[in-house]
């Protein structure tokens, strides 16, 4: 599924990055070590972590995009790094549970 479709379906706010890329999996977690150990490539990651380290984790695991929940904001440095590394960033007021449920219903596994 294209990130653009996900964004439209969930009414996500687009922060930066390409929308014309495919994601197959979803992963919801805030512990970076867990994400690093378990997330698959082509994943859309649901979290409340906004520190620059999330971009490093995304780059290492092959995560394509990140949805920051609960109305949190990304650090400026994080956005800058995401642009450099080609990671797509979204944010939303909704919580991780609701977002994950919607992603699952859309067919991300």
């Amino acid at each position, binding site marked *: 599924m294209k990130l653009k479709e996900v964004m439209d379906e969930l009414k996500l706010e687009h922060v930066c990055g390409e929308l014309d890329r495919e994601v197959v999996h979803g992963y919801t977690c805030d512990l*970076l*070590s867990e994400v690093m150990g378990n997330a698959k490539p082509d994943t859309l990651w649901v979290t409340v972590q906004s*520190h620059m380290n999330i971009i*490093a984790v995304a780059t290492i695991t092959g995560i394509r995009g990140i949805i920051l929940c609960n109305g949190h904001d990304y650090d400026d440095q994080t956005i800058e790094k995401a642009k450099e*590394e080609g990671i797509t960033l979204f944010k939303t007021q909704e919580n991780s549970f609701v977002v994950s449920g919607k992603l699952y219903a859309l067919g991300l596994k």
Partner: protein
Amino acid sequence: MMKADLHIHTCLSPCADITMTPDVIKERTKKLDVLGILDHNTSKNVKPFMKALKDKVVVPALEIQSVEDVHILGFFEKLEDSLRVSEILENHLPNIVHDHEKFGYQLYVDESGRFVGYEDKPLGFPTDLELDEVVDLILRRNGIPVFAHVERKFGVLYQLGVFPKTPVRIAEVASEEGYELAKKGDFVVITSSDAHTPEDIGRRTIWLECDDKSVKSVLSCLLSGKVITPWG
């Protein structure tokens, strides 16, 4: 009385400015008596600072990241102890090679400020140790554990919501709000700059009610709560 900034990063931290070298820090700390020199998950850059800053009390320290990504400072009387903890932590960091270009340089310096090497372990990541294990590791090596910037990102209150029951007796805060929260938790409260750039150094400081210029007396002063912060 001695003026202290106990949380100053060096150029070994990936998120710190590469100008955080002994010569620059010396210039910026003329009004301070006591400095805590540290990096994320290591003390391996502290020695050149101790050499270059002989007229100061330099507390060997590190800032350990637990698996919950709670940041905990360790203050040590002896550099060997903090280095031993640093070595142990190397086996608890993610097994990836740090990309200096992408995520910030991790540089070793000598006392004159010359770069002498770089660190390929990803120092800016959480370890796989739980908070209790981190506290225990510091205590077993004769260190003093301190909750870092409790009310801010990666502080214990921010990450876990409440103060967990641990042997930690000292809390670092970054604001008056944090001070009140830590006081309620019955902690000895300190505040420090968490400097990642030269300009940050000394932006928050404390007074220690002791005059003996040794790491030992600074640490005992902290433990007994002989500390004055801007809020009390």
